């Protein structure tokens, strides 16, 4: 009973502590929203298991500690059919639950835009140690490391990603969008985001494209600053750049 009480108490404290933490800040894309929710759900499910282990360790150490240095044996309980069955049942059920949600549902959510026509397609090429961008059909390309990658808010944006043929593997990661996929020479990859918030690198360092796969010397500097602006402002920017 005492152990159960400690467990419940620790779990409540753990959950409250976690839920008041603002780990990620506001999600700025639909995909980031899905991913943050999956993370929070997994954490909410993990906390009682963790507190159970802590409770058990603390409880047995204080309650079942042998007196002195004598070698007294405990009662020889070798197994317990019902407890083993119960343990197998709850771990299996929880595992299956997590596989379905947020597991499978998460995969479906991240792919639900696959068939849609994107509002903007950006072709991305990785090269040691910078990213090259081409706004498809808009006559705008960014070749300099210092360029700002400007993206429209409230839009479905598709990034189509590769790396130059003689180059190495990079990973195209936008921390604020929570999305990443490798840029592999000889292979074309993609991901979609639905932007829902505006933002600028200067206000939030996660508005950046960061290479996430070790690619040699300047790997850490292989990043591009991002600004997400309202669609009208974006069209203005595109027009200025194309001119």
């Amino acid at each position: 009973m005492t152990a159960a009480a400690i467990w419940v108490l620790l779990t409540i404290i753990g959950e409250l502590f976690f839920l008041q933490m603002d780990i990620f800040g506001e999600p700025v894309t639909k995909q980031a929203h899905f991913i943050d929710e999956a993370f929070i759900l997994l954490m909410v499910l993990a906390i009682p298991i963790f507190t159970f282990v802590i409770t058990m360790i603390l409880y047995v150490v204080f309650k079942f500690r042998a007196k002195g240095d004598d070698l007294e044996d405990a009662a020889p309980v070798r197994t317990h059919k019902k407890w083993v069955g119960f343990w197998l049942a709850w771990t299996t059920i929880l595992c299956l639950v997590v596989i379905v949600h947020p597991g499978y549902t998460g995969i479906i959510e991240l792919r639900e835009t696959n068939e849609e026509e994107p509002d903007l397609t950006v072709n991305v090429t990785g090269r040691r140690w910078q990213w090259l961008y081409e706004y498809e059909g808009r006559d705008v390309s960014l070749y300099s490391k210092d360029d700002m990658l400007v993206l429209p808010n409230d839009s479905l944006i598709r990034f189509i990603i590769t790396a130059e043929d003689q180059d190495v593997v990079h990973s195209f990661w936008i921390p604020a969008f929570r999305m990443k996929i490798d840029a592999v020479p000889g292979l074309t990859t993609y991901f979609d985001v639905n932007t829902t918030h505006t933002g600028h690198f200067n206000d939030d360092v996660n508005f950046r494209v960061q290479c996430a796969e070790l690619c040699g010397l300047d790997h850490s500097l292989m990043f591009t600053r991002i600004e997400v602006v309202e669609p009208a402002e974006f069209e203005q920017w595109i027009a200025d750049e194309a001119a």
Partner: protein
Amino acid sequence: MTAFMPLVRGIIYAAIGYAIGAGIALSIATTTGEPSTEPMIVLGFVFAVIGWLMGVGMWTTWGRGWFGKSTTMDITGGWERYLRFNVDHKVIGIQYITSLVVVFLLAGLLAMGMRYELMDAGQNVFTKTTYNTTMSLHGIMMVAVAVAAVMGGFSNYVLPLIIGAEDVAFPRINALSFWVVPPVVVLLLLSPLFGGFDTGWTAYPPLATQTPIGGLLFELAFLTFGISSILGGMNFIATIITQRAPGMTWGRLPIFAWSVLAASVISLTATQWVAYGLLMIIFERIFNMVFFSPPGGNALLYEHVFWFYSHPAVYIMILPAFGAELEIISHFARKPLFAYRWVVRAFALIVFLSFIVWAHHLFTSGMGESLHGPFMILTELISIPTGIVFLSALGTLWRSKLRLKVPLLFALGVVFNFSIGGLTGIFLADVATDIALQDTYFVVAHFHYTIMGGEIFAIFAAGYYWFPKITGRMYNETLGRIHFGLMFLFYNITFLAMFAPGTVGMNRRVAEYPPEFEFMNLITSLAAFALGLSFLPWIYNMLNSWISGPKAADNPWGAKTLEWQTTSPPPLENFDEFPVVTGDAYGYGDESVVHAKFPNSTNAVPAEGD
């Protein structure tokens, strides 16, 4: 001086071997007009390893027999018996443990250097190249420690004893698998002098085919280490199948032996994949063959081959650690191991599943999206058998008579740490959260929780537990507790703090990072320095106790497994009289279960203090 003769001879023969190999490569390269440097290094190294092995004693104990000549096996003597090709599994175990402690401390110093660099956002002491090389070396050296310290070290020493055998099934292959390790360490330590390598221990091509010569040395070292691992795994499987004492049925086999068997199956079969992968990288470099580098090659192919080994490899590391942890918990709880049969089933299931989960490392690699779902499901299923290990540990502790000695403290540390390591693994098995967390510090914190918090803590548990058996002396309990307290506290601060930058956008393997993440990195670094210092009482305790600690009893823990039913340290052939096994090793509180009988000996099962 004669003690060092085998080593000196090994070095001389290695030099001669290198000259022969490099000469052959040079003459071939000259006729074909290809660049000759890297082929000379590769072929030179192959011949140098053969020369080294023959020089340290493989020729006299083994090689001469291939030509019908007489061989001599010199396995007795004092400390000098550790300095040559020796077939005694106890000597080999100590050779592994001491060499890997040195590697562990060196790799730990590299980690200290990395944490010093990461204290602030800018780039300070390291250049980008030296940081990458430091990080990569730390990785591969610690992987080597994690793979070989339990398997090569403690398994070698303990396994034949715990199953009541005289030695392993193939003692000479056992010695061979140790003596290829020193060339591996030499190559790794030479690598920074030849440009280093900035690929991480994962060595993804095309980057890995384009590194300086330091990268080639690393790839050769990894490949050679793989050979050691394969031979070791094969040897343990044969030993457990054929060398068990009379009456040691599968149902009576101690759980540590089961865990070594499970890990050995992976070690024997999976390691060959990474060996081929590295061989193909080396062939790309020296023969201009195209396997992985576009155009013509497929970079993703290597990632699959690599993780087809390297995911099972984490179970080579953690399974024997689970075995040692459960063994120690049962003996210090004075209670039979809870749900023994289920743990054996869980180990078997983990081995099976470990081979079919590798692509969860590739969710963001660009592999086919249809693979995401199946690999997520298979990966998350591993939580069920892993849960059984926790059930067994906690079930054994419940209503026990717990003796809180240092080995048990570390075993409890494994239970605590691995619960964090295991639970954070779910976030990386889930496709959605993995896409955000892959390649960030979240992953770094996660695998340090499983491998360092799980396995390395279990190695320390095993180290304290078997110290009196191996050395014949007792360690200092107070210093051991201080070591545990400091290590447990600062370990957890270091790596709990490391999750934070990962979730908020800091990628791994960088020497400089956005200043927003400075504070969390500073905390991690300061805790890491304290963690580094926490090993000092351990080093002092081990050295001092080995030299001048009080003599240990044969069975200071009153444990029932066979290694405690012989002298400390055991005689050359392990038992003065070989045991006949009559029951399992967990008959605590149950006089009807007797693990072993020594028919001709008067004191059948010596208790504590004899």
